[in-house]
């Protein structure tokens, strides 16, 4: 984005509509946050010409974040829990994503919602695996195979290999001669149709097992990701909904694809079936995705329509699930909503709904349980459009989706996206404040000068002499300030480096201790009896321990760095003091609580050998009859798996803190530059004018000089007033964002 006079307004016009011309309150999901985002974008544009050159890259960065950021919502759960149908209902488009009686979604699908006046182009984009990726996958060099090989070296899993072979043979058969050219391609389309999605996303039938007549090209085996774009939806804030193939799939390749897709979403919607709520597989999955992050998961109990008694049984099931979640994850607040995606999709038909087909669901008990007034026409089996619309509405409410929307609204307001907006706002605030102070200083000295002018020429001349002296030393002082800032940056960097070594050691100790404990436990239990059939090693406690240690260390480090950062303010103030004696006391920017980004713990989510299920372990046991050998091998496997994970965590921390430090110092430099530039400009201007005045003769140029300075003062006052208004608004925005994260909301 260029910040010259013409471009910005046009570029930002679709986002920068002033608040007063919009509806006072956007009712859609994420409305509040979107209002803030839009306002911030507008403000960033307004601020650009008012701030100095070092601020521009930071402003551009902020704008980039504001424009590109989406809130990522991943919908996960076991196969056939109803994820795709749920997404269809959530985004108000029944039948969008294809569903089937068999596990059908085979590809991770991203639905990008971004409000815009025109329809998006392209509307759909599908990226295929590259030739290398595909041959690796088909040759079974994927992670799962690596894991099983690690478990039993030389172990040729019939099941795994057979499945890979099946997939490759099927893909080649389906795609025929064009198979080779298709790999590595990206296909884009301007219209989304049902057939299109079935071709690229759905698992498809095996040929000869009940095809739908016409032979279609089925790309799903080689599609890596699918992206669908929408310019309208039930979301105010830009949202990415992520549909996943589903876990616990006996077809192991799809299972692996799902796990890999979970890259740090802001929010997880975990879909479970009312008929089999919270099985062991669900709990393990929840543990894996959750870690200790609060307010990131929503559990939706789907398929209430398949219960014999949705109202009473449903209430019991919901209570049990809530209780179980509370017991398993006591530190979290996980909202639980019971409902039915199937009902919601009916409800979305509105007046077109065939009310008779759903009448049996709309029992008085159901209506009462959901607070819906019984409509007389409905109960009498009415068929008018009004009756149908009412039935549709009742069904949609009973389906639980208004509750889902409300929960999502709250979660978005407290999500990582909200924290990011808070961070951006703080950045803008600091830059604006810096500039405002600089202007204030300039204004003050200017009026001081004008006053001095009015009294005595001699005093004035003294003042100018003073300024000349300051200017002469200016460069030296400026260099000194920059040097100090550089030193701080290096110092902070050193602190990080210094702390990394003990962290690495501590994490390593945790892993080794765990591995030893498990090996010893195994040896003991083997001596007691043969546990072959049921033995499985649970590494979730290890993951949790590592995460706790890692985040605690990161928190401590962040606090240490923050303390040092507070020293930056006094340094800037001192610099102001030396450059403009007496002005330093005004330069007091009170520190604001900055939302600290947590580094990602994504490395901990990787599948490890220990996650594999019982059937793999039997082969391992068979290959290792000696108990001591088994125990030793177990220890090796655990350590071997977790050392690279620890290394990645460290890398993650280093890069995260490196970025944070650089960013903070960039802001400080931008503020410093504001001050320096202001001082220098004023000085030079003043001295130039003075000399000019002297040349022309005392009296003649006096009024000229004064009037010019007065004009300048007025200009400055105006600029400063704008900035003060901006500061007020930005402060209010930060308060709003922070309020949303208060507990108890």
């Amino acid at each position, binding site marked *: 984005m260029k910040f010259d006079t013409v471009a910005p307004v046009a570029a930002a016009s679709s986002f920068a509509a002033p608040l007063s011309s919009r509806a006072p309150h956007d009712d859609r999901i994420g409305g509040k946050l979107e209002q803030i985002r839009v306002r911030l974008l507008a403000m960033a544009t307004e601020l650009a010409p008012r701030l100095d050159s070092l601020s521009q890259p930071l402003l551009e960065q902020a704008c980039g974040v504001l424009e590109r950021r989406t809130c990522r919502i991943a919908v996960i759960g*076991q*196969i*056939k*829990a109803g994820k795709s149908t749920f997404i269809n209902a959530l985004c108000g488009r029944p039948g969008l994503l294809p569903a*089937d*009686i*068999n596990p059908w979604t085979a590809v991770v699908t991203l639905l990008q919602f971004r409000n815009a006046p025109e329809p998006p182009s392209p509307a759909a984009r599908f990226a295929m695996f590259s030739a290398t990726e595909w041959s690796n996958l088909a040759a079974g060099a994927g992670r799962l195979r690596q894991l099983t090989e690690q478990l039993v070296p030389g172990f040729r899993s019939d099941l795994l290999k057979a499945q890979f072979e099946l997939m490759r043979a099927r893909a080649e058969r389906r795609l025929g001669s064009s198979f080779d050219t298709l790999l590595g391609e990206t296909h884009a389309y301007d219209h989304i149709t049902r057939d299109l999605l079935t071709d690229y996303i759905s698992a498809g*039938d*095996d040929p000869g*097992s*009940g095809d739908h007549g016409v032979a279609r090209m089925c790309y799903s085996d080689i599609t890596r990701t699918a992206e669908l774009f929408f310019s309208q939806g039930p979301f105010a804030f830009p949202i990415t909904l992520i549909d996943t193939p589903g876990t*616990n*799939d*006996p*077809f*192991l390749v799809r*299972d692996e694809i799902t796990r890999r897709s979970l890259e740090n979403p802001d929010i997880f919607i975990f879909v479970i*079936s*009312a*008929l*089999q*709520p*919270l*099985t*062991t*597989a669900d*709990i393990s999955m929840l543990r894996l995705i959750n870690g200790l992050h609060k307010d990131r998961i929503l559990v939706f109990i789907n*398929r209430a329509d*398949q*219960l*014999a*008694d949705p109202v009473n*049984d449903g209430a*019991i*099931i919901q209570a049990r699930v809530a209780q*179980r979640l509370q017991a398993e994850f006591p530190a979290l607040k996980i909202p639980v909503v019971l409902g039915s995606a199937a009902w919601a999709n009916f409800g979305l038909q509105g007046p077109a709904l065939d009310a008779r087909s759903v009448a049996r669901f709309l029992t008085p008990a159901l209506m009462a349980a959901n607070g819906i007034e019984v409509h007389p026409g409905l109960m009498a089996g009415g068929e008018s459009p009004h009756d149908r619309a009412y039935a549709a509405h009742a069904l949609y409410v009973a389906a639980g989706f208004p509750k889902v929307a409300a929960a999502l609204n709250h979660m978005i307001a407290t999500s990582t996206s909200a924290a990011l907006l808070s961070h951006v706002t703080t950045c803008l605030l600091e830059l604006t404040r810096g500039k405002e102070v600089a202007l204030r200083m300039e204004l003050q000295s200017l009026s001081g000068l004008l006053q001095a002018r009015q009294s005595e020429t001699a005093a004035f001349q003294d003042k100018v002499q003073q300024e000349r002296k300051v200017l002469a030393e200016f460069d030296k002082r400026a260099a000194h300030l920059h040097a100090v800032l550089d030193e701080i940056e290096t110092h902070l960097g050193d602190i990080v480096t210094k702390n990394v070594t003990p962290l690495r050691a501590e994490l390593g100790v945790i892993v080794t201790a765990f591995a030893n404990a498990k090996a010893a436990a195994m040896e003991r239990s083997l001596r007691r009896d043969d546990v072959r*059939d*049921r033995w499985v090693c649970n590494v979730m406690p290890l993951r949790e321990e590592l995460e706790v240690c890692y985040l605690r260390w990161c928190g401590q480090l962040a606090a240490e760095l923050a303390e040092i950062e507070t020293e930056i303010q006094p340094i800037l103030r001192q610099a102001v003091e030396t450059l403009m004696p007496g002005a330093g006391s005004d330069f007091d920017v009170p520190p604001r609580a900055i939302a600290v980004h947590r580094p990602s713990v994504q490395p901990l989510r990787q599948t490890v050998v220990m996650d594999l*299920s*019982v*059937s793999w372990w*039997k082969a391992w046991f068979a290959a290792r009859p000696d108990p001591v050998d088994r125990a030793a091998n177990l220890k090796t496997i655990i350590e071997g798996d977790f050392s690279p994970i620890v290394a990645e965590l460290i890398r993650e921390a280093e890069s995260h803190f490196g970025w944070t430090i650089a960013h903070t110092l960039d802001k400080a430099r931008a503020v410093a530059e504001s001050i320096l530039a202001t001082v220098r400009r004023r000085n030079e201007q003043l001295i130039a004018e003075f000399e000019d005045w002297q040349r022309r003769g005392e009296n003649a140029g006096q009024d000229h000089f004064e009037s010019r300075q007065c004009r300048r003062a007025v200009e400055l006052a105006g600029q400063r007033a704008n900035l003060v208004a901006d500061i007020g608004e930005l402060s209010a925005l930060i308060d709003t964002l922070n309020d949303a994260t208060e507990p108890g909301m």
Partner: protein
Amino acid sequence: MRRVGRRAPVTDAGSIGRLAVRLNQRLLRAPRVCVLGELNSGKSSLVNVLLGNAVLPTSACANTRLPIRIFRSNRSTLAIETGDHERVEISSDQLTPDLLSDAVMLHAGLPLERLESFEIVDTPGLQSGDERLCDRATDACRQSHLAIWCSTATQAWKASELGIWQSLPKRLRMNGILAVTFKDTIGSREDEGRLWARIKAEAAPHFKTVVMISARDAIVARELADRSKGDQMWHVSGAAELMQAVDRHVSGLIMERVRGAERLLNSALSGSPYQALSA
């Protein structure tokens, strides 16, 4: 239940007589059919179909907490088997949660005709997260001769089910039946065909027989006044196929036993020592 050992050669008539009595007792013992599956997969409903009577509670919230063995007896009896394998007879109003928490199995004797051919064990749903319940279920299964695995049609045959099934003894798996339950929730014939194709490809290799059944339709069919309609519905529900499969497997097992008994007797009568007595 396999004992391996050497016994003294049986030569005299007394020992042969005792052996014959023992073999006879074993032949008369009805084979035990165990019904397994994950939570809410329709096991209890299936048991009701097999019994021909709605004996067990089946709502989604009334999850079986204890394995129940149902066998033939002249009058209704109820006994509880404790951790040290003692059986204590009780009455139904004595069934309290405390009593159940120490128990390993419930034994219910019923005067039902069906139970002359086999006993049935209903088990707690697996993967509930309650380790003890899961252990009880698998233990009950190990003491059985036949296993039926239940899987819901709408969320059929997951990796976790395969994992558990594969951890069971081979003798059970080789003779196993997969019952895909809640057939009535399948939307269309086409869907049924597609599901069947997938089950055939992914699950059938691990079982001897696969059937699709709707327990609800079966029970309704039994109670219809119009018998011809009832019979037709019974057939369509898959219950007929299930009963046939169970009968077939049970008969196969019994024949195997008979053959085994014959072999033992023959070898005893011919005077040669025998080395293994398989139960």
